[in-house]
């Protein structure tokens, strides 16, 4: 069904990223801080404000 041979240009690109030196890495600790702040803490604050304050304003 398939083939493990890649076209030359694709092979070049794949080989580039197989070199660990070319892997840009994952999220940094600063990124995780941002993701937690905007994706978890901000929603929690919105939920609390919306539930306890929003209806009375």
């Amino acid at each position, binding site marked *: 069904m398939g083939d493990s041979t890649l076209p030359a240009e694709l092979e070049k690109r794949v080989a580039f990223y197989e070199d660990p030196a070319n892997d840009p890495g994952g999220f940094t600790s600063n990124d995780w801080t941002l*993701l937690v702040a905007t994706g978890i803490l901000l*929603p929690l604050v*919105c939920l609390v404000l919306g539930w306890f304050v929003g209806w009375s*304003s």
Partner: protein
Amino acid sequence: MSTDHLSAESASEGETSWPLLPKERLWNRRALFIVLMVAASATWCYIIGEYVGYYLPLWPGFLAMTAGAMIGMLLVTLAVVPVSTRFGVDSIKAAVPQFGTSGWTITVTLQYLSIIGWNSLLLIFFGKSASEFLNAIGVGGDNLSNVVVPVAAVLALAFVFVILMRGATGLERVAMWLFFFIVGVGAWMIIMLLVREGTALADAVPGFASDKQLDFQYGIEIGLVSLLSWWPYIGSMTREARSPSIAAGPSMLGMGLPVPVLSFVGLSSILVLGTSDPATWLTDVGGNFFGALALLFVMAANLGTATAGIYASTVGIKAVPALGRIPWNVALLLSVVPVAFVGIFLTDWFFDNFGTFLAYIGVFFAPIVGIQIVDYFLIRQQRISVRGLYNTSPDAPYSYWFGFNPAALLAMAAGVGTYLYLLNPQTYAVREPFSLLGASLPAALVAAVVFAVLTFILVKPAGKGGYAEATSTPTRVTSS
């Protein structure tokens, strides 16, 4: 040979599903933020706000919608951004490790249907805005919209087609132009509504309000599923950035936050004006001059988003092996034509069923993000074989069984079943614990758990999925 077949020439232009090299990935945080923000800021925000306004007053509605939206954006970001930015691939390729080398049949289909739906909506709004704009400047009569809406839709698609003949470069250019227009007029619309309708907004009662907890959960769920719909879009844009670090902020703040902020306009207007469509009230509230100006904003915003959507869809189409060889412009046509058909011939049908479309977004994309997140972060520990994304031979790491991963298929089924049990996408009837948990989060969680269990008892023991291989892992972390 069934590996992706694309010309080196087109690959160098970043218009394929092949990994982009760093020299081709030139978007910094600012450029990515602008492109993502322009992509997110469109008329669909108004109709999203409208649906929240059926159940919630202004501030609870805005806050519930914002909470849901940011949770949804976090899920999409975690699911797609790490792989797309590490290897310069789009959302479809980023899902290969979980769904298999033939998994594109699922993901491309969902992407295609989702983007056709959203862009059809944009085109309809674009046409209506163009019609109202002509009315505002004194051109045309009562029956103008019958002609203008389809003509404007065709012209808009032609514009998008021409822009995207340049690929991602065209997308970036048009985003830069639209950015200040969108921010400025969007802010003006919000201020205008608050200043002129502030008192009425404070007293407005939602049309379908019933139980406080259930209504609040509807608001969260609508915000969440709306942002899950960025799954098909985001990878084709974040792949233009060189690392996850560059994309994390623009993703959350550029693509996530503008949706609830602009949805505020739709939420406010449905509460006090009875319609969320700015095309029908902007000239009444803002006067002919400012109304016409704002209508131009609506048209421009929709064009920017439609451009991003058609681009993402076209990149996804190029990931289909049988379509990999076709020229970029032909793939572009395959993205444009269905949108034109729905936007022109099925206008009323699509409008009447928008709520169902929105709920079905959650039905499918919630399980997908759950599966991707648990696999990438917990099971694979961020190890990915970039070669495996393109190697379709039977013994390739992501070939699984006949190119499909049964763990992903069964997890999808479990997630979809969970969602449908909790929320009926057609009637919005719910079963508990919807009022406590919503539908998307449980669907994502169930899919993730089923995927993890099946992977450990079925896939890994069979030596499938590349879990045992030494593959690329993010050991070198850079900040930029």
